[in-house]
């Protein structure tokens, strides 16, 4: 008898069910756990208070990223540079102390391997296809680009994973986003995911795990797949998945924490079974035509507020839904934009290239390709590039990308979350605009009053050159 065709999500879920309670809640085994300094101190404290050990310390990897300043971490004599903000310093010290106390592997702020957790996990081969990966950070969805079921959790769940290596979960619904056709020249993974969020909305994926399907994704590098899955949460989805294939396997082979030798061969044999079976049913299907995707930017304060770069700032009246009209007006007021203004006439004073969405080597190469032999416009006050990890930084320097950025007037920084969120010194001043390769254009996200326009690394570079939002295809 033929068994029921399964989705990729079904397969990973089924492989991790420890047991299912009568009420439908399952104990799901967690293979990999990433920890950073912001959402973990209260979890470690709770373990200490209850006298509970960490069940499988080797399956958790701790890396500081959110609070770390991206300026030099060592002074001329090699000593540690003190962190000015006492609260940030205390949070970082707590992680530095908690990790060894509980026997957890810790990558320190001055280690070459340090970086944003979602860049470090894949880079170290810690994140693997078919595994369950969690972290107290919603952008854990990124690791779905390797074919892992990866999602963000709260601090109570961080504690739960540390103590039990499991989570109590209800299975989500499944959604396929099937992208047909090919992306036009100059259109990137970031443009595609922004476009998708615009189509399904910021709550469109709520309650679902998304599987991205279609040739477009098969043709993407791992870096691009990580960018797509990273922003699944901005569509409200718990996780995003792309079936693993040879592109993923060759990316992972030889990484420090990936299996090797016979173990590698066994792993790959298993990973090849990880795809949705023909005829597998999804609770919801969305079809997108890749050829319609333009270089995409946001105009408002929700990631669903997207528009093609050749379009204008929309009028609130253009929305059918009354509450969306109200929200759009509020967004425009906050963003200081007038309906009908061409997006290419919106000036930007700040450029941020970085974040767990777009700080990998390919992202830096794409931005550098646009900036090569060019300079930032005079009205661009602040332009920074923040590599996703120390290893990305080193690679970029070996390729000479750092020189291209600094020659163009950018600052070349140390790895961390930086100006994606207002937790470290990298902030955008109130009332100023930032062309940003990050993932959230929320009110106050990049600093109180800061105005964020989300876009791809190449588009951020183009905005830097012109001093306004720009169609990168004009510069190539």
């Amino acid at each position, binding site marked *: 008898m033929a068994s029921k065709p399964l989705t990729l999500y079904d397969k990973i879920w089924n492989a991790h069910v*420890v*047991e299912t*309670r009568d*009420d439908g*809640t399952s*104990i799901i085994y967690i293979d990999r756990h990433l920890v950073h300094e*912001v*959402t973990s101190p*209260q979890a470690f*404290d709770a373990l200490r208070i*209850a006298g*509970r050990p960490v069940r499988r*310390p*080797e*399956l958790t990897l701790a890396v500081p990223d959110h*609070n770390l300043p991206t300026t030099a971490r060592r002074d001329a004599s090699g000593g540690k540079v003190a962190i000015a*903000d006492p*609260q940030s310093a*205390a*949070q970082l010290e707590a992680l530095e102390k908690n990790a060894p106390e509980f*026997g957890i*592997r810790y990558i320190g702020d001055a280690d070459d391997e340090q970086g944003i957790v979602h860049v470090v996990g894949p880079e170290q*081969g*810690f994140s693997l296809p078919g*595994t369950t990966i969690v972290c*107290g*950070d*919603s952008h854990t969805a990124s690791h779905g680009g390797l074919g892992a079921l990866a999602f*963000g*959790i*709260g601090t*109570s*769940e961080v*504690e*739960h994973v540390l*103590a*039990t*290596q*499991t989570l*109590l979960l*209800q299975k989500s619904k499944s959604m396929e986003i099937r992208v047909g056709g090919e992306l036009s020249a100059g259109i990137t993974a970031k443009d595609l995911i922004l476009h998708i969020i615009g189509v399904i909305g*910021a*709550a469109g994926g*709520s309650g679902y795990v998304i599987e991205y399907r279609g040739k477009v994704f098969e043709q993407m590098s791992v870096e691009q797949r990580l960018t797509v899955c990273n922003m699944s*949460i901005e569509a*409200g989805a718990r996780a995003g998945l792309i079936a693993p294939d040879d592109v993923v396997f060759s990316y992972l082979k030889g990484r420090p*924490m990936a299996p090797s030798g016979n173990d*590698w061969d*066994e*792993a790959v044999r298993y990973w090849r079974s990880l795809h949705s079976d023909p005829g597998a049913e999804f609770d919801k299907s969305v079809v997108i035509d890749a050829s319609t995707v333009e270089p995409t930017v946001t105009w408002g304060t929700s990631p669903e507020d997207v528009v093609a770069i050749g379009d204008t700032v929309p009028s609130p009246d253009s929305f059918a839904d009354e*509450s969306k009209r109200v*929200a759009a007006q509020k967004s425009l007021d906050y963003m200081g934009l007038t309906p009908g203004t061409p997006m290419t006439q919106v000036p930007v004073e700040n450029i941020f290239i970085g974040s767990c969405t777009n700080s990998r080597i390919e992202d830096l190469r794409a931005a550098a390709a646009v900036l090569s032999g060019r300079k930032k416009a005079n009205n661009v006050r602040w332009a920074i590039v923040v590599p996703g990890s120390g290893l990305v930084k080193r690679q970029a320097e070996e390729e000479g990308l750092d020189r291209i950025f600094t020659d163009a007037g950018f600052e070349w920084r140390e790895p961390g979350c930086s100006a994606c*969120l*207002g*937790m470290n010194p990298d902030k955008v001043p109130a009332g100023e605009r930032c062309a940003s390769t990050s993932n*959230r254009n929320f*009110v*106050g*996200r990049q600093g*109180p009053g800061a105005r964020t326009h989300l876009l791809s690394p190449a588009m951020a570079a183009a905005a830097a050159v012109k001093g306004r939002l720009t169609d990168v295809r004009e510069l190539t």
Partner: protein
Amino acid sequence: MEPIERVSGRAIPFGAKNVDTDIIIPAKWLKTISREGLGEGAFESIRETQGNVFDDPAYSGAPILIAGDNFGCGSSREHAAWAILDLGIRAVIAPSYSDIFSGNAVKNGILPIVLPQEAIDRLMEVAQAGEPIDVDLDTQTVTTPFQDRFTFDIDPFRKHCLLHGLDEVALTLERKTAITSYESQRASAQSWLTKGTEINA
């Protein structure tokens, strides 16, 4: 966490859609290593506006918050739940929540109630009139002094945990044997899974 059976009192008529956790508690408040005192930073950017509902004395200490679609979207920060709890809120009523926020709420003894938009519109009116709202978790109902009665669905496990103030970690630790047997079965079937992670002392 504190068990919950009933939540009664005034409700804050907030109602905004797509309220992200950066709005509920901005990043600068996340630098704490404790769960306490976050109410001070709750909804900070909204509270900069004069006449906002959170600083309206009519709703001071109100235990219920009425919100819009996709409440708590964005960042996974549990600080959002801690901040709301610190304001004294024990129940939120909205048409939908982000998955992570609703989970965080339950783990902190906050009841996230889902009701359709029409019910939310009606409860907003009741709340704006300063009239009390009554939430009964046991019977899964929301009622008002005007004979409105709305029933809501809730996952039975979440209901059980909220009614009894249960600690999920303790519950799962009772299933240690099942976890151990899962681990050993996987260790033999897929030994490669943990090969790169060993920590050499």
